């Protein structure tokens, strides 16, 4: 009799969940199978347990009320930022963690030019914008043309090229400095603004900016003083190389020479 394994009825019943979860050894399972053939009570209990398990797996999640996100947004420094994507721009701006890039602050004229380019076509659009701290869109009514957008792209690609060159050098040298991450954070914001512009209608440029967006997000997220042997650095470095980002930026930028008065 296999009751040498389970010599009391109660012990059989206690192992029913293990049986259901496939947690018995081969011998124990064979013994349980034999017991179930003879015990109607255990068979009934097993079916009930099976139903409980199935019911648990079918439970539906319930969305929290809107007050939960409101409280979260307040606690992360973005009061008023809605969770549905239609954001209050000012709230979104406040939400951006402080990123300081001194060299860019000093280049006020360049930033203004970048802003002008980014603003092409935006002033008539209601598309939600992504936040940035250093780049301001022009006020409605500011005269714009597509040349200004190309100038902005050219300057942005020049700076991003410098950043990626620095990143590549530091990654090869052993340690990626925190400032590179901060720099990437700034470039990430500008990349998304350029992508978001209605003037960004060149498929080749869009693809390049989308690739840059992801790589810059990778670099911006690196921990401070990252050892270059980490998987994150390796993934970002591989992305730079395999996407041929530097050659693509070099070839794309001269192909669209700026022709506005903003050219220096």
């Amino acid at each position, binding site marked *: 009799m296999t009751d040498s394994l389970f010599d009391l009825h109660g012990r059989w019943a206690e192992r029913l969940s293990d049986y259901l979860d496939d947690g018995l050894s081969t011998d124990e399972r064979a013994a349980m199978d034999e017991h179930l053939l003879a015990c109607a009570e255990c068979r009934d209990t097993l079916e009930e347990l099976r139903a409980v398990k199935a*019911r648990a797996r079918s439970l539906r999640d319930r969305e929290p009320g809107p007050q939960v996100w409101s409280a979260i*947004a307040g606690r992360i420094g973005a009061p008023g930022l809605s969770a549905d994507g239609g954001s209050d721009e000012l709230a979104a701006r406040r939400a951006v963690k402080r990123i300081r890039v001194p060299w860019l602050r000093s280049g006020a004229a360049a930033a203004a030019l970048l802003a002008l380019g980014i603003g092409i076509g935006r002033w008539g659009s209601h598309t939600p914008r992504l936040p940035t701290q250093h780049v301001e869109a022009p006020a409605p009514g500011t005269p714009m043309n597509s040349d200004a957008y190309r100038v902005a792209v050219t300057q942005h690609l020049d700076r991003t090229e410098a950043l990626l060159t620095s990143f590549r050098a530091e990654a090869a040298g052993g340690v990626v400095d925190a400032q590179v991450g901060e720099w990437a954070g700034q470039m990430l914001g500008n990349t998304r603004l350029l992508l978001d512009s209605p003037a960004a209608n060149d498929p080749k440029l*869009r693809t390049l900016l989308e690739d840059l967006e992801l790589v810059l997000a990778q670099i911006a997220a690196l921990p401070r003083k990252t050892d270059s042997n980490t998987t994150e650095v390796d993934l970002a470095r591989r992305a730079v190389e395999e996407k041929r980002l530097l050659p693509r930026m070099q070839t794309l930028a001269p192909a669209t020479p700026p022709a506005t008065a903003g050219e220096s």
Partner: protein
Amino acid sequence: MKPRPPGPEPDPLIAQLEAVNGGDAYLAAAGDALAFARLYREHAGRIHSLARRMASDHEADELTQDVFVRAWEKLKTFRGESAFGTWLHRLAVNLILARRQSASTRRARDAGDEALEWTPARSAQPELAMDFETAIAKLPDGARQIFVLFDVEGYRHEEIAEMLGVSVGTSKSQLHRARMMLREHLG
């Protein structure tokens, strides 16, 4: 994940970065609150339901807030070794268990046997039968947490034992106890 605008198919490497590391998670780690709002929309239901079942209905809102605020603060430590949802879920379980641990320590000072809280509801009177979610909420703390983690969330006994600081055998016996209690409330 935000929708990709029309254009060429994404490069496999970029797709890998998005899939493995979570594009919005990296953007949020870089300070993009809009990306974080998208992550919230995607995961809030699951986290809130986890909190409601592991703790209680009236604690779920506050726990959900705490989980997402903690996630915002700790996103820099998200290393892409698992999906963002898995990382967030583990963070939520740990936070909820820690809160429940301290709460139960306080309760233990003036509470009796937790099993006494259980009120069987044999369905001889159907109008008194409990909703299944309510029945889960009425389970004793230990049995409820293990039931939710194993049967609802799909954790293994070894993982649960580690999270709760109990033996695998205790996890199995508490799961069985919970199921035996809940079978009364299937109707």
